[in-house]
């Protein structure tokens, strides 16, 4: 299969024309005949028993079609969790029901008490205000470390100590403790990886309808994985036949993980649409988004990293309390465990690792995967510790990393690297990205400038992060053995039309990633046709055979590989058709640059002619079916492991504590690259979110369980003028186990960036004699100021 050179080119995104001209088609744009609108009555309290829900006045309001409360749904299942994690003793995790509407007690602010359906959204909103709820307020708990203490309020009456699970991975704790005891130096950090609000630009939106004539449901949903929503909703929640349900995710305005999960509103609207016989639409208000879209992170961690006298890491010990919120969201249980504990090897040869994670219910919004999902938390822990150890041992942080890196391996001539924490890395050249980063930042010079600044009373700091992530989620057999209740393959159906145009039906879903361009580049390249002759179709369960959706930087490595499999089948069949037309043996046909040629001759026919012949098979092999149309499923052999080096240079204002980001260098190795412009854009976005966590973002609950910064007036989203121009570098270490050699780029920036920033600020403070170990993220001016004043 030779190529026409489309792979690797920075082609402008074909989808942008419709987005930039206002022609996107989002769920909220869809208005169906006889449309109704829903508004919710939501809990004002973090924890309260429902004594009475009076809908009588609301039902008399103008335009009201129906009102349902929790008591109408007691026989309906809740939304399920998709990943089973076990207690250390082998017990299954505690998985209390997450009801579509609450009947007994509310467990977080925003918990849904009633749905009000009316002719217009204004009428629904007015009527929802008229529903009278009588509460008995209960004591609440918002902090995971406090929630496990005896006597803490119970979020679920039947879950002792609010523990969903406690879980351990790695070497036996006795071995790790022993290695730690023998260490020449131990660096210890107790820190919070704070809770984040995902803030996709498009709020969640659903529009569900039921056709009594065909007994079919259609759900439009702003989801990252419509097929998974269909499966979960049909099989686990509503018990409705899957073949009678169509789920469509049209254009979706960003997800960052928060639109992976099956939310209660999707199933509830579907249930309601049959009850009232009309379509029901609900679009989250921004205030609801803050309270309801599954949050990210929220770990409380104590970690120790032990070193020998030469600065080699000898042991790592981690204890984390992961706040899961009030209910188990779809993938909440795997994020702090299998997407976090498994990354504790980092890029280092650490021989003894033990990770202990307790998953805890609290009276807060459920927590689940958010861009990076577990891996940013792991990276933060490792990279903060190694920079801190460098300061404490007075070893240069780059040098300390070089002493500990796993040596380069390509996964072909050298085997993959077996970690102490279950995973086997595919290929890597970790010292390569750090060397390149040091060159780009001009390391000796910035250190000299730092000294000069310190001399002039200024605080300049340099911070590193060398990260790895597990992407391309995931080999079904491996994740199955770890508790995943789904396969994590991907499907692709490539349909060559009689005129040689190509329609590709992919189970991946694009909500900002640019698949319509990247996937088309792959297909056009491999088939030697024009980019314009390829159409990428996604997001409709009736168009696409099956799909596991887009998350975990998996679309190209898993979804793209499925497309390659179908293309290989098309070329193989094409060779048979061409051989017949050219009166040669199929074994003698070569395919290159869109032409089938008899080897060693100038006899050839084009791809278009073969396509036409497949559908107009007048002259055609006797034993071959007509048509040129193949489906494939691809289940990866391993995760992919992108990695990189991020370096931040900051200046801290001595008087106010304000942090200014002066430079940010990112050298990312994401394997082979299909479209460098899109990869750069993905990394830019990821960096902004990672730096956003370090400097700006953080959900703050008060002791009453109220989210006190649930608006953009108080929750600080990063903005363009907060950043310098990013200095981007790259290295390519191909993935050895997928046909494109790609690793994934969607989460890299977010995973690597935060610790580089915090390390730089700590480094700046040390340069001024303030020897602080940690400052809690986000590094607001006040927190940095306090760190200086107090140390």
């Amino acid at each position: 299969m030779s190529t026409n050179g489309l792979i690797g080119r920075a082609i402008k995104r074909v989808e942008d024309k419709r987005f930039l001209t206002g022609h996107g088609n989002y769920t909220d744009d869809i208005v169906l005949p006889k449309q109704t609108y829903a508004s919710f009555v939501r809990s004002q309290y973090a924890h309260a028993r429902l004594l009475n829900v009076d809908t009588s006045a609301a039902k008399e309001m103008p335009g009201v079609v129906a009102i349902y409360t929790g008591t109408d749904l007691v026989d309906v299942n809740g939304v399920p969790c998709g990943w089973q994690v076990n207690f250390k003793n082998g017990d299954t995790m505690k998985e209390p029901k997450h009801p579509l509407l609450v009947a007994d007690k509310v467990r977080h602010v925003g918990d849904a008490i009633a749905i009000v359906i009316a002719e217009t959204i204004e009428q629904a909103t007015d009527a929802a205000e008229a529903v009278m709820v009588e509460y008995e307020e209960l004591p609440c708990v918002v902090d995971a470390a406090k929630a496990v203490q005896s006597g803490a309020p119970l979020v679920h009456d039947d879950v002792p100590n609010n523990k969903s699970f406690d879980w351990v991975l790695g070497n036996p704790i006795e071995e790790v403790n022993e290695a730690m005891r023998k260490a020449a130096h131990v660096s210890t950090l107790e820190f919070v990886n704070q809770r984040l609000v995902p803030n996709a630009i498009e709020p969640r939106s659903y529009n569900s309808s039921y056709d009594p004539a065909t007994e079919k449901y259609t759900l439009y949903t702003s989801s990252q994985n419509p097929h998974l929503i269909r499966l979960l909703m049909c099989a686990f929640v509503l018990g409705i036949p899957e073949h009678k349900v169509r789920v469509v995710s049209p254009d979706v305005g960003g997800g960052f993980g928060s639109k992976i999960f099956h939310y209660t509103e999707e199933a509830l609207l579907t249930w309601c649409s049959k009850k009232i016989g009309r379509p029901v639409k609900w679009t989250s208000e921004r205030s609801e988004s803050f309270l309801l879209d599954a949050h990210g992170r929220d770990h409380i961690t104590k970690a120790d990293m032990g070193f020998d006298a030469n600065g080699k890491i000898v042991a790592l010990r981690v204890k984390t309390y992961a706040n899961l919120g009030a209910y188990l969201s779809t993938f909440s249980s795997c994020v702090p465990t299998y997407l976090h504990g498994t990354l504790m090897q980092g890029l280092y040869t650490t021989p003894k690792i033990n990770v202990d994670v307790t998953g805890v219910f609290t009276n807060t919004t459920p927590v689940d995967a958010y861009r990076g999902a577990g891996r940013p938390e792991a990276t933060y822990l490792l990279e903060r510790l190694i920079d801190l150890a460098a300061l404490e041992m007075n070893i240069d942080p780059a040098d300390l990393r070089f002493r500990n890196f796993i040596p380069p391996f390509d996964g072909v001539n050298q085997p993959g690297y077996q970690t102490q924490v279950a995973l086997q890395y595919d290929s890597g050249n970790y010292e390569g990205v750090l060397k390149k980063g040091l060159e780009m930042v001009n390391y000796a010079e910035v250190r000299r400038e730092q000294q000069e600044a310190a001399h002039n009373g200024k605080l300049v700091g340099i911070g590193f992060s060398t990260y790895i992530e597990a992407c391309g989620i995931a080999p079904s057999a491996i994740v199955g053995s770890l508790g995943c209740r789904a396969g994590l393959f991907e499907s692709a159906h490539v349909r060559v039309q009689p005129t040689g145009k190509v329609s590709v039906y992919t189970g991946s879903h694009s909500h900002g990633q640019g698949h319509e361009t990247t996937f088309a580049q792959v297909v056009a390249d491999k088939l030697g046709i024009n980019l314009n002759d390829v159409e990428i179709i996604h997001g409709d369960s009736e168009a696409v055979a099956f799909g596991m959706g887009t998350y975990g930087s998996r679309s190209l490595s898993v979804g793209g590989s499925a497309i390659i499999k179908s293309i290989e089948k098309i070329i193989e069949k094409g060779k048979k058709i061409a051989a017949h037309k050219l009166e040669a043996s199929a074994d003698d046909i070569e395919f290159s640059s869109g032409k089938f040629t008899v080897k060693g001759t100038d006899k050839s026919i084009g791809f278009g002619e073969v396509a036409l012949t497949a559908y107009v098979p007048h002259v055609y092999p006797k034993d071959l079916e007509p048509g040129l149309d193949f489906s494939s499923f691809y289940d990866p052999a391993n995760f992919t492991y992108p990695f990189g080096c991020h370096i931040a240079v900051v200046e801290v204002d001595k008087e106010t504590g304000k942090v200014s980001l002066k430079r940010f260098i990112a050298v990312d190795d994401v394997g082979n690259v299909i479209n460098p412009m899109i990869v750069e854009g993905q990394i830019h976005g990821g960096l902004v979110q990672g730096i956003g966590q370090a400097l700006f973002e953080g959900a703050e609950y008060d002791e009453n369980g109220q989210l006190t910064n649930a608006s953009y007036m108080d929750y600080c989203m990063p903005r363009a003028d907060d950043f310098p121009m990013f200095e981007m570098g790259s290295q390519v270490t191909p993935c050895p186990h997928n046909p494109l050699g790609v690793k994934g780029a969607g989460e890299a920036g977010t995973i690597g960036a935060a610790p580089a920033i915090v390390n730089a600020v700590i480094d700046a403070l040390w340069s001024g004699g303030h020897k602080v170990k940690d400052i809690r993220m986000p590094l607001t001016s006040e927190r940095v100021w306090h760190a200086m004043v107090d140390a």
Partner: protein
Amino acid sequence: MIPAAFEYEKVKTVDEALAALSDSDTKILAGGHSLIPAMKLRLNRPAKLVDIGGITALKDIKEQDGEIVIGAAATHADIMYHNLIKKHLPLFAEGAATIGDLQVRNHGTIGGSLAHADPAADWPAMVLAADAVIELKSSNGRRRIPATEFFTGLFSTALQPNEIITEIRIPVPPDGTKSTYQKFVQPASRFALAACAVMRFTDGRTNIAFTGVAENAFRDGGAEQAIAGKALDDASIKAAVNAALQGVSVLGDHYASVPYRMHLAKVYLKKALHKVGA
């Protein structure tokens, strides 16, 4: 984000607006950048909005009898780019440029900001430092009150329910007057976490006003006295900074505790005094 139902009337003259205001539970709509979000959250649900955005006379910016007169419906951007302002009242151009973002500056109005009296809004500090007088009209007539008497507390002013702000009048500062607006922004809202407006006259009088620090913007008499008539040097500035915020009840919140906000206010006063002394 669906407001409760309300009536809406767009008026063409101040008299029409005043007539409409006689209905109870009526709010004036100017730029809408404070009122509309509050209505969408149903924190505010007036029965009627009277839109004064179409009263062109309220947008005028002119010089009259030794005063700069700014119409209450002038937008932040109108003020920021106006030649009279740039020439005579650079404090207002400098400060307006720090308000919100481009969209906010193009819609939000000075009168709306003053009437709303957000404790962290920018205009209150600037009008205080500039010795502005605020003109209010009702169906009973007109009154002018100094900015120093206008701000009475958290989101509260001397404005009566039947009044609208029509003009802000500032004595043209004599040649040689120096001024600055120094603001430390709250990173999310970009309102002032603490900000200081200073106007330094050639006779050594120094007006110092803070916003973002307490329940309402205020002139700091202690700091003003400490620096009045003195040359602006390190020692006098230090004395003024030490004298600042005496007896002020400083606010604490998510982004700035009381001690930190007090510290910031003093740092920004110092910056401002150094700037006008340079």
